[in-house]
């Protein structure tokens, strides 16, 4: 049963009322970024995005859609799995030291506007990080998700081919589809969990007319056909397991900057390193977790030197892990088709194109 919501103001207020910090898209520095929202007004009403390999531009839309844009420069992992987080501290004592776990992060986030790809990405990270009893698990437990189905993919999107979109779900508390009619925006709401239902009952809703439900479904279905990119069909795990010596790795290595942007923007990349710091007195030590990337030379450092010294081997690690060995390690693909790594690679390297080239090379061999 679908419900119609005429504006997002009450939703944001209700979430605030329940003590959530509401995070959603907003315009800042020429992009639609994710930030804490104090009001629904901060949503990017009327802003659209044009994305291409290595390129991203905002533009004004003809209508007032709040979700008429695709994935931006950040993903929700910036909140669930932040770039830097404390692990524990240690203090020297007379006969050794004591260790104190970092105080639990009690933030309760509500994510507003999670797309299909990102919803799946959260599930992917859940598999990797959710088991351990760390900050991620705590934040995740408290998380409230308002998802939005996509009706307007960017040129870099390919979630239809990864099976993660454009329709969002499952995994949300509430799922929205935005219905835009010029300056008027309305939202079709789907309930995913009891918590979602409870919240919805606090909102001024009305039953959705059947034609609107159909219109929404059609718009989402149409989005799938609008995607110009796709990952190749077939078993990519096998493809990559057999592609260690592909010539294509040299080709991409000539273009790849090893800058690591692709891994930082990727909503599933989870790798971290630790930082040990001490105070000047040497009495107090801290351990922090921070994002790392397989593009860093030191990532594979062993005494004597790094294992992956060439860019070829590091790019291969990235792509092979994402689409291949992720299956071995976590039973699914690590790529959800959000297209961020394509748009935010400064030189526009395209994961779908590289994979396709590997397919071609394998076929020709």
């Amino acid at each position: 049963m679908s419900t119609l919501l005429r504006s997002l103001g009450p939703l944001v207020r209700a979430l605030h009322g329940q003590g959530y910090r509401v995070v959603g898209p907003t315009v800042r520095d020429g992009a639609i970024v994710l930030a804490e929202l104090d009001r629904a007004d901060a949503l990017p009403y009327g802003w659209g995005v044009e994305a291409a390999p290595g390129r991203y531009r905002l533009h004004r839309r003809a209508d007032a859609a709040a979700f008429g844009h695709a994935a931006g420069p950040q993903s929700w992992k910036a909140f669930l799995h932040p770039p830097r987080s404390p692990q524990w501290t240690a203090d020297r004592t007379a006969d050794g030291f004591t260790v104190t776990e970092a105080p639990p992060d009690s933030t309760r986030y509500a994510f507003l506007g999670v797309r299909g790809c990102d919803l799946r990405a959260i599930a992917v990270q859940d598999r990797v990080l959710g088991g351990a009893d760390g900050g991620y698990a705590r934040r995740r437990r408290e998380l409230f998700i308002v998802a939005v189905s996509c009706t307007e993919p960017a040129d870099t999107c390919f979630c239809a081919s990864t099976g993660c979109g454009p329709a969002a779900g499952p995994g949300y508390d509430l799922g929205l589809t935005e219905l835009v009619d010029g300056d008027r925006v309305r939202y079709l709401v789907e309930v995913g969990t009891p918590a979602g239902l409870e919240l919805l009952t606090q909102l001024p809703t009305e039953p959705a007319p059947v034609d609107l439900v159909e219109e929404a479904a059609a718009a989402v279905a149409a989005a799938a056909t609008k995607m110009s990119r796709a990952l190749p069909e077939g078993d990519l795990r096998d493809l990559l397991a057999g592609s260690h010596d592909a010539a294509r790795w040299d080709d991409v290595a000539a273009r790849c900057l090893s800058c690591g942007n692709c891994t930082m923007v990727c909503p599933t990349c989870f790798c971290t390193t630790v930082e040990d710091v001490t105070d000047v007195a040497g009495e107090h030590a801290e351990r922090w977790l921070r994002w790392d990337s397989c593009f860093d030379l030191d990532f594979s450092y062993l005494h004597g030197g790094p294992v992956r010294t060439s860019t070829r081997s590091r790019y291969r690690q990235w792509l092979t892990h994402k689409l291949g060995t992720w299956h071995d390690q976590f039973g699914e693909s690590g790529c959800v088709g959000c297209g961020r790594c394509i748009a935010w690679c400064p030189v526009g390297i395209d994961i779908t194109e590289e994979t396709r080239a590997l397919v071609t090379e394998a076929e020709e061999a």
Partner: protein
Amino acid sequence: MGTAPTLAVWKFASCDGCQLSLLDCEDELLAIAGRIRIAHFPEASRATVEGPYDVSLVEGSVTTPGDVARIHRIREQSRLLVAIGACATAGGIQALRNFADADQFRSVVYARPEYLSTLDTSTPASAHVPVDLELHGCPIDRRQLVDTLTALLAGRKPDLPGHSVCFECKARGTTCITVARGVPCLGPVTRAGCGALCPAYGRGCFGCFGPAAVTNTPALVDRLRELDMTETDIGRVFRTFNVLAFAGGGDDPSQ
């Protein structure tokens, strides 16, 4: 105090900015002075203790015959020699002379160049003696300096990443200015450490921390051209504060 490690600060051709970073540690300076014996730091104290020193911080580049002798003397007296800043690690901006005719340089500046005696080149400490650690940047980052000193005190490896500025830029949550605004940026080939300062101020990184541990400068240069940078501008931006380092290149040797 008797067993506190000793620290010496030395200056070669430079602007003083990197050693000023130590005095800029307003919150930590007195604590540091409480744990480390500052044995030789003319900018801060008249008192000087003879070597050997546990740690020497060397600022500035080697530009005179006297400097060459001095850097060797410092090396002999120092257990650990840490080069600080673009001058000491890459010859600094004054290394531009290495690419020009030094005589001409002199005559532009001096009315009577015959009074002058300098080397034709400006070179980093590592061109003359083994260097144990390098803090990059023009100037160095204060946090990196404090971390390095505390790491040395704790026996820890200092956290001096070799990866690109992009790592820090993304961690900071800055929207990439190249992708979103078409602003040319050297971040992808520049060593992290500054906290990705320039992009956060809407400006392209100009490489003041020198090349990252791995770079693919040719690929970035292609991109800079697409972003409408002229050959002259591209040449200039790589030939400023770390001209020697970028010219030496950290490019993937397998390429």
